[in-house]
């Protein structure tokens, strides 16, 4: 589903190269759940951005659902994202001038899907916000915003979902609800999940954990317990 080979990213800053990611490789199968953990500034977000085709690598390659992203133009990669990818962001990134329902509708309308409103409404109900569809993001709490964002991420039935610190801006209780929903929806849809977090407890719920530090992978472990649960429940 996702294959990363020798991925390297460096920035030219102040005359010299600053390498923030060095030769990272791994491969994920469909329906895997996968966590990238590491201290702040270790390159997690950079890696996620590269995997999702939001940025270009300095070296190495990324295959997403069998499509090699490296040589695609920005617009071609946008089409790939719309087709296969869902996103969850630390700061939600809902469009402020659109209502909750319209925010969920965006990926569907972008594809030209007919009757998207029903799908979007169902998704909102699924995340427990059926009655809040006409509210604007500013009228929703952080947790509610993140739930709308979850509904939006699943709207186009993505094959792979990228989440960057999805609970980073939420308090503990709200986090728990959002995390439950995230894993439930993920299981139901059979989506591959790539989760960036520095929360080890959250990471523990995935089947595989990659630890990076200073831009390099320091460990890549299969989470036996979680993998077992996943196998049983499917």
């Amino acid at each position, binding site marked *: 589903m996702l294959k990363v080979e020798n991925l390297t990213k460096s920035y030219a800053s102040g005359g010299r190269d600053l390498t923030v990611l060095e030769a990272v490789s791994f491969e994920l199968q469909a329906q895997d759940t996968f966590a990238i953990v590491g201290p702040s500034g270790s390159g997690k*977000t950079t890696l*996620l*951005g590269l995997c999702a085709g*939001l*940025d270009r690598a300095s070296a190495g390659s990324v295959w997403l659902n069998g499509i090699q992203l490296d040589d695609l133009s*920005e*617009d071609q990669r*946008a*089409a*790939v*994202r*719309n*087709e296969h*990818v869902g*996103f969850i*962001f630390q*700061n939600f*990134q*809902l*469009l*402020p*001038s*659109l209502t909750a329902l*319209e925010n969920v509708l*965006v*990926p569907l*309308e*972008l*594809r*030209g*899907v007919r009757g998207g409103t029903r799908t979007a409404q169902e998704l909102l109900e699924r995340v427990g916000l059926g009655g809040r569809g006409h509210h604007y993001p*500013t009228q929703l709490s952080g947790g509610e915003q993140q739930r709308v964002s979850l509904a*939006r991420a699943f709207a*186009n039935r993505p094959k792979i979902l990228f989440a*960057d610190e999805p609970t980073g801006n939420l308090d503990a209780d709200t986090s728990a609800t959002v995390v439950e929903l995230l894993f439930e929806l993920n299981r139901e849809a059979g989506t591959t999940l790539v989760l960036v977090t520095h929360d080890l407890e959250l990471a523990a719920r995935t089947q595989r954990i990659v630890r990076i530090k200073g831009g390099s992978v320091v460990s890549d472990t299969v989470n036996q317990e979680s993998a077992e649960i996943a196998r049983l429940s499917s």
Partner: protein
Amino acid sequence: MSNFLFIWRMAWRDSRRSRSRLLLFTSAIVLGIAALVGINGFGDNLARSIDEQARELVGADLVLSASQPFDSTLQTTLRRLGERRSQEVAFASLVQFPKGQGVRLAQVRALTGGFPYYGEWLTEPGSAVAAFREAGPAGQRVALVDDALLAQFAARPGDSIKVGELTFRIVGRVRKTPGQSGFSASVAPTVFIPRELVEQTGLLQRGSRVQYRTYYQFAPGTNVDQLIQPLTARLDQANIDSDTVAERKRQTGRSFTNVTRFLNLVAFVALLLGCVGVASAVSLYVREKVAAVAVLRCLGASGWQAVLIYLLQTALMGLLGAILGAALGTGIQLLLPKVVEGFLPVTVSVAISWSAVAEGIVTGVFVAVLFALLPLLSIRRVSPLRTLRASLEEDTAGPDPLRGVVYGLILLFITGFAYLQTRDWKLALGFAGGLLLTFGVLAGVGEGLRRLVRRYFPSSWSYVWRQGLANLYRPNNQTLLLTVSIGLGVFLLATLYLLQGLLLSQVEISSTGGQPNLVLFDIQSAQREGVTQLVKRNGLPVLQEVPVVTMRLSAINGRSAAELKKDTASGVSKGALGREYRVTYRDSLISSETLEAGRPPFLGSDGIPRVSFDDGFTERLKIKIGDTLTFNVQGAPLVTIVGGTRTVDWSRVQTNFLVVFPNGVLEPAPQFHVLLTRVPDNATLAAVQRELVTNFPNVSAIDLGLILQTLDEILTKISFVIRFMALFSMATGLLVLVSSVVVSRYQRVRESVLLRTLGASRGQILRITLVEYALLGLLAAVAGLGLAVMAAWALGAFVFEVAFVPQIGPLLLLAILTTALTAIIGLLNSRDVLTRPPLEVLRGEVS
């Protein structure tokens, strides 16, 4: 087209929270389009009215005219041309009302026949026209007199009027004569007398300025041009001019397009200001939308889809602005004829010009899209990575070639549109080039300021100053944008203002000092002595006294005028070839003339006179020093050589001439004399006129004071129209300022709130804002004004050829006003920040 549906929906939904700002951008277009539609619609109506009323302007299908009685050999031919014809002898003369002893210069038209054939000759009583037409053949002494003249001397139909040696009974008051504007009626009001009696007035003498005319009416549908075609050569030879309705249409149209063209340019400036407003408002709008665009990109929208969403918004707002502007412009267009009606020869109809409306709407949308495109293009390059890293720097992946294309389109548009408005390529290119230069200089000034402040940052200054100055170069600064948009606005306004002063000063004739204010015309050689004495007896100075001989040009370097007229390649102006020349003779130049080349007029040793030409006029005749010119002096040929050129200051009240002959050639020719003097008051003027009309009835006295006054009235009206249009530019400029500053608020809000959260006082934040905006306003204003002064100087030197003296006062005022306004609007904006709870802003809920 599902994608298009998406774009439509997104454009609509996204606009919801920003409509008030989009409206501001709309308003920038409204006034520009209003000015454009107003002027163009007026121009259309004027052209149509001229077209419709040209026949009434002429009053006949054909007019033949000459400054001497028609050649007798032509009589039968001319009689055969048409049965319905009307003859006229016209000249200027002092007329007298015996009842009140009033004397005034009038245009005397001695008329017989059915003229006017078209248009309404409005008289009181209405039966006066018929009475007048019947009286002539019967030898009755009756006259029709212009209302203006009757009103001046409180005379009425039934009173009598003395023209030359005859006294006529006034049978009617003339309200309107086809072909005469209210203006010409007030400068030289007309007295109509029967043609049959004109000789008896004793006013027709050799050398007098008399026009002989025959008016024809033909059967409807007659092709007049074709009818007189076979006669042209003979008419030319006899110095008879022909005027047809078609020709009149062309001429009148041409002279008024010049007036509307300048106004068109003024309207265009208002529109351009609106464009600057659009570009700056949209570019700030785009900055605000970057985050939303990044999300859309993340969700899979292509770069162009994102651009189209915002382009659609701006196009729709542009359409709205254009429609509002067109409606407003239509209102102006309906009002303009009221303002200028006095000095137009036609009654301008007040129909809505749909073509001007359509043109205005299309232009509005086009301009909105074109100028919005420039900032909108950068949306294509917004990286989706911004969703992960909010503070990502501007994506500068090399220059965008499309921007170059849009810049090119804008330049093309400006040049093309300027050409459409002026029909003059040189002017259009100069206009576009000047704007380009201005834009470049302003951008340079903005960038320079940014670097300078950064480089020589005054770290020892107070906190407020440092913060305000730092705002000029920190990320997300608006230095460049505001300098260019405010500077360009100030530049356009100031240039317009200076240009207006330049134009008006050119036509302003000073009537103060020892300038002459009374011109005695048509003095016969035999009367010269007597008139001079009459003037001196009244204690008046003889300021100038010159002989005038009328002649026509018959050949240049052996090629006849008729031949040259036909040869279009020769480039010689037809008007210059066909005109009647009034020349004088003397051996020196006078104070209003300066020698340009060659020598003052002199009689060559070969006996051929060396004449002096007005410098500009040699261009029109395509002649140079040494060329041989043959004149026809009332029948007799006279060979001359161009001996020199001079420049003439036409704005001085002098008897100025295009051609000056040397002494010793024209003395025996039929001629009249002109005498310039200055009367101290109206009583003296009346006394002189009375004495003149008794002793020298054929001598005309032109009261320059009266003419200057009428001219002044016209200029006041014209400058009112110009100022009115300039007002639109000014209002648009203000809107641009407001929209630039208002939209820029969203850049500063977050910082100001953060500062406040960190404990800065209200006063401190206000002062920081004040420093930033006042500095920007001042710099932009000074730069814009400097450029405007240079532009006005260049226009004065190269286009209008008048010396330019900048009016420092108004410019200073404009600079102060711009600075103050920028600062005030900036302050008003941040006031809003201060009243809001910081938390709201920190949570990103600013909208």
